[in-house]
């Protein structure tokens, strides 16, 4: 008879392999496409592989033959926009989330709903309307305009997440700090903020990734002058599968990186901070 532990271990391993396949198989396809120079049907694997598209995309080589351009400009634009969006969103969402979590304010539900409003309608009509308005005030086709659109998309999630992070901290922890002599501000900085940090960080990462990935809003407001990675991906996906695969992988890297960091850091912070 097989010991139970061996049985469950085997089962676990099989499940893990299946899960890995489900998650990583599509990415493997991307990876293959990104290094394929020649790949014609009915071949299972590319006939000819090389890093030509990668070199071209990353601006290491310049060749007119493969129809790809450098992605570095778009990458930089995307990261700059995402960073600006993260900073602005967190500056707004942190205090708003705190107030919504701690204070009894009139029309609280209405305020939360207001943040949710842009998400409640189909996005295209909202963005088209926004484009017309932005055209009038000269924000369309400019980075500030794109940042504003991303704010609209990200703010609601950030406010909800940070509000939840603050709500999970017992108010007695703050009251105890006040009683030993800390002002309201100092209590917030020394007690509340460190305890909410894991949740706030998660919210910031989420905002960063959402902004990096944002398509529709950027499409309407940004093009043709603000080209982010998703814009480039869209314009190349129709005719250049290799180049599109390179961009897709580049877009995936920050997500995977942050997931690993979050997993490590958040776990550490929660175990070290919140305790049992």
């Amino acid at each position, binding site marked *: 008879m097989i010991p139970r532990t061996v049985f469950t271990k085997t089962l676990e391993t099989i499940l893990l392999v299946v899960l890995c396949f489900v998650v990583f198989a599509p990415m493997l396809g991307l990876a293959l496409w990104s290094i394929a120079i020649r790949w014609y049907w009915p071949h299972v694997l590319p006939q000819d592989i090389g890093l030509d598209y990668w070199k071209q995309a990353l601006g290491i080589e310049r060749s007119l033959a493969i129809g790809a351009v450098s992605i570095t400009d778009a990458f930089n634009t995307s990261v700059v926009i995402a960073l600006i969006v993260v900073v602005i969103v967190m500056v707004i969402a942190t205090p708003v989330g705190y107030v919504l979590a701690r204070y009894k304010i009139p029309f609280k539900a209405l305020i939360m709903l207001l943040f949710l409003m842009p998400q409640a309608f189909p996005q295209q009509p909202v963005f088209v309307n926004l484009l017309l308005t932005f055209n009038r005030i000269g924000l369309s086709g400019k980075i500030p305009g794109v940042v504003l659109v991303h704010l609209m998309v990200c703010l609601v999630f950030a406010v909800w997440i940070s509000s939840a992070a603050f709500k999970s901290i017992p108010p007695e922890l703050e*009251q105890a*700090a*006040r009683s030993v002599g800390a*002002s309201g501000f100092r209590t917030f900085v020394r007690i509340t903020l460190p305890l909410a940090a894991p949740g706030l960080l998660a919210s910031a990462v989420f905002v960063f990734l959402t902004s990096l990935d944002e398509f529709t809003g950027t499409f309407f407001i940004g093009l043709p002058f603000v080209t982010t990675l998703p814009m480039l991906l869209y314009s190349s996906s129709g005719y250049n599968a290799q180049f599109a695969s390179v961009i897709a992988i580049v877009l995936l890297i920050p997500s995977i990186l942050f997931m690993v960091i979050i997993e490590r850091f958040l776990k550490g912070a929660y175990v*070290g901070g919140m305790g049992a």
Partner: protein
Amino acid sequence: MPGLYLKNLTKRFGKAVGVLDLSLEIRDGELMTLLGPSGCGKTTTLRCVAGLLKPDSGEIYLGERRLTDLPPERRGIGLVFQNYALWPHMTVYGNLVFGLQLRGISSAESKQRIDNALALVRLSGLQERYPRQLSGGQQQRVALARALVIEPRLLLLDEPLSNLDAQLREEMRFEIRELQKKLGVTAIYVTHDQAEALALSDRITILHQGKLVQIGSPSDIYTHPGNRFVAGFIGLTSFLEGVIVQAEEGGQFALVQLGEGLTIRAHAAEPKIGQRVTLAVRPEHIRLYLERTAEAMAETNLLAATVVQSAYLGNALDYRLQIRDWILRAQTSTDRRLEPGQTVWLAFSPDQVTLIPAEPG
């Protein structure tokens, strides 16, 4: 150490009353317990004193100092919560040093004071532990040390033992009491546990529905409950109802008629003939006789009763006895057990009955 004065303190939550027109003096070095069922206003009062709630009206003075409008951080009051409220991201040392840093105390002196405070609560050497590495009892001791290390002028304890198991709770009662006496710090202790209140208070304030019901020493309140609520809330009490029909011995005793042919004699300061009264009797003051022996016949108040129910408590037997429409509780030693349905004779002394004027309505 200054005393604390509350003058006409009132706090409402919308239409609900938190505390109503409460005036109270807590003497220098005294441990005053605010006791009452949940919703009685004890925690509201404590939070007003701590500055966590703003009273609608009334004044709070600590000695000469008016606290009413001061923010909590400027009141110099130590606070201990039911859920300990230790900061989980700081070590024990970090929890204690926070208040000292805010006071600009040097790190050398801080270290000394923290060592002393931890020795006081018998947790020396645990400076570098995190709260999650401590047991519930240890966490509450750290919370106590954190409140005491800032040398507060007043210590507020909000049901500090309610989260601990029964045995530890009793142990900590004595510890808190001893510590408070040793330091001579004025303290307010909020609890709904009457046994805890009796065990550790200098005086007890009983609150009910936001209003002060009775103030007194534990023995005062136990032996002379001011009304039926207090008598029922503190310890076990049985109630009988009747009318005063006669005053005796120069107005020291009253003859109370409970019903047709059933009268008892009770101690009363100023009996008013014709007044409706409630009589409160403690189970431990009731003596039981199986027969009308000579000893039984010598009792002033001897009543026939029927055993309704009995329960074995380990150290005693607990009985429910019926006299006409009333149920009385009595406790006896465990050497003989009475059976339900059995008739017994119960007796109590006139000065062990508390006469309470019947409440109108």
